[in-house]
């Protein structure tokens, strides 16, 4: 019986370094040399890349003879394959180098070896032969093959659903619901960068015991933060022996803890890109090793970019809308009073001494509350907000909508005396269960 042709793409589970790969080369004297590889990187159906960090003997042997043999092991089935490699080129910049460098940075953090695994160069090899190692006496039956998942069709349906929505809120929900229902991603969240891209803030999630809206992750930290910093997807297929990484949060940013699984085994994050800028990160995790594949990562990338583009368009559209302002009923002046504290140094807001939010959403909320106490105004259009120079918003004009969503969802989750509603597109209304006693900590801002 003819054995099926083995495609390089079929071996990607073997490339993840869960069980280290092995590289064999021959030196000047004909002596073999063995080295271990943390990862083999798939480039295309005929090429792989290997990271060149420490194994100088291997590098010298490859430079001399131009060939190497690599053995990879599938961490799910235990299947082993031998790859005959022909060296093609070494690179110390470019897409392949950056992708490997990002992955190594993440993995070195995971293993507590920060800085040790710095990439010097990525070596590109052509794969000239793939041979399966036939087990003479397998110790366990082969696992059931995974059912085929048509990720292109799933992604197409989710992308269509996102595109059918006009409002930022429903766009976000279409993306998250689609990922949950179509692709069976049970635990996921969307995070958005602040204006200087130093912090990501969680705006929507699915599958956790709480939403965690407003939780922050520093850019450059953890799987989420490193995805934002590198603007490249990160997939960690097996976290069995790695430290838990997604929630590596430091300092005072943990005022709202990021929701997360107790024992994630697989994590994936992809950047949301539009107009050449990072618009956010979609993060998914699972308690099962190898829950996500590289096909999932590619499909999520398509969805992430569609989400980014549609959020951007919705924001621009909301900017153009001139809503008809109807006077809402005045709040009940007999209702209770609550303390509203606003800290100028980071735009953080505390209500009755409980942290609510900070950054631009905090600044917006202070603006709304202040305007209300000065003039009784409760309805605000996006256009008006953007034009108000006191809000200092010029750097994020194209994501006001998402800041308002974050603020509105955080207020809803907090279930306190303040809420934001949306009487119509491009407009927000401040809703009260009580009246604010405003305290500004720091110099008073100049409002018109």
């Amino acid at each position, binding site marked *: 019986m003819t054995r099926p042709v083995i495609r390089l793409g079929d071996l990607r589970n073997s490339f993840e370094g869960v069980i280290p790969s092995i590289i*064999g080369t021959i030196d000047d004297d004909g002596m073999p040399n063995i*080295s*271990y590889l943390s990862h083999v990187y798939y480039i295309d159906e005929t090429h792989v890349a290997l990271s060149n960090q*420490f194994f100088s003997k291997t590098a010298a042997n490859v430079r001399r003879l131009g060939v190497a*043999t690599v053995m990879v092991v599938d961490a*799910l089935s*235990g299947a082993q394959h031998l790859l005959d490699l022909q060296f093609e080129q070494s690179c110390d910049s470019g897409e392949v180098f950056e992708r490997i460098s990002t992955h190594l940075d993440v993995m070195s953090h995971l293993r507590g070896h920060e800085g040790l695994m710095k990439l010097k160069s990525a070596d590109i090899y052509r794969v000239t032969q793939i041979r399966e190692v036939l087990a003479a006496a397998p110790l366990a039956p082969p696992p059931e093959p995974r059912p085929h998942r048509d990720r292109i069709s799933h992604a197409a349906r989710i992308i269509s659903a996102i595109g059918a929505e006009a409002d930022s809120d429903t766009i976000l929900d279409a993306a998250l619901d689609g990922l949950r229902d179509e692709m069976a991603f049970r635990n996921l969240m969307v995070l958005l960068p602040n204006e200087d891209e130093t912090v990501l803030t969680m705006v929507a999630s699915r599958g956790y015991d709480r939403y965690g809206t407003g939780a922050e992750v520093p850019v450059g930290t953890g799987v989420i933060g490193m995805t934002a910093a590198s603007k490249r997807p990160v997939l960690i297929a097996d976290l069995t022996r790695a430290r838990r990484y997604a929630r590596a949060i430091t300092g005072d940013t943990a005022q709202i803890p990021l929701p997360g699984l107790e024992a994630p085994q697989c994590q994936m994050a992809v950047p949301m890109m539009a107009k050449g800028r990072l618009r956010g990160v979609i993060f998914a995790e699972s308690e099962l090793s190898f829950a996500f594949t590289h096909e999932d990562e590619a499909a999520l990338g398509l969805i992430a970019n569609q989400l980014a583009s549609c959020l951007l368009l919705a924001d621009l559209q909301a900017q153009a809308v001139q809503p008809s302002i109807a006077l809402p009923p005045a709040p009940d002046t007999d209702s209770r009073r609550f303390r509203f504290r606003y800290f100028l140094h980071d735009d953080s807001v505390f209500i009755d001494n409980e942290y609510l939010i900070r950054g631009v959403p905090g600044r917006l909320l202070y603006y709304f509350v202040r305007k209300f106490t000065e003039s009784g105004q409760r309805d605000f259009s996006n256009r008006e907000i953007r034009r108000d120079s006191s809000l200092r918003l010029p750097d994020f004009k194209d994501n006001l909508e998402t800041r308002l969503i974050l603020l509105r969802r955080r207020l809803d989750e907090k279930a306190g005396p303040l809420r934001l509603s949306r009487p119509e597109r491009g407009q927000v209304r401040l809703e009260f269960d009580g009246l604010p006693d405003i305290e500004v900590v720091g110099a008073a801002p100049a409002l018109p």
Partner: protein
Amino acid sequence: MSTLISSELADFISGPVMMVVSTRDQRFRATIGRGTGALYDEATGLIDLFVCRAQWPDVVENAAPGGKIAATFVRPTDYLCYQIKGVIEDITPATEAEAARGQLYVERMLTLMEALEVRRAQLSHSLCARDLMRIGFHPSDVFLQSPGPHAGERLAGVTA
């Protein structure tokens, strides 16, 4: 005890460590396979390494007397790893006693690896005590091979 193979190293390679073996084929390509136990014979100065012929035919076919061989020995608990290189003295089918030793090695490794959360299925194709060949070789060089910047550091060698 040889100055090349200390008693500690002899104990190490005969213990529960994962082994990789490499020889050289006609095309000057490295073959790769896994070992099923090893021991150092102080009297002969040989390291005996056991390899499943059916599973690793390339390694065994290219393991001829006078040929060169490299083997790594990794302790899974801390990744302490040595690479020993040398010249093959002889290759013979494993005796009954040697085959039993190979079987014992597989059982010890399974116990150890399962304690480290490595599933049996993950090792299903790696550990094999069937159809074992004994490859005896004279060690000529010892290298530290633990992951990190010191990987490949030469610890001892025979001067020509």
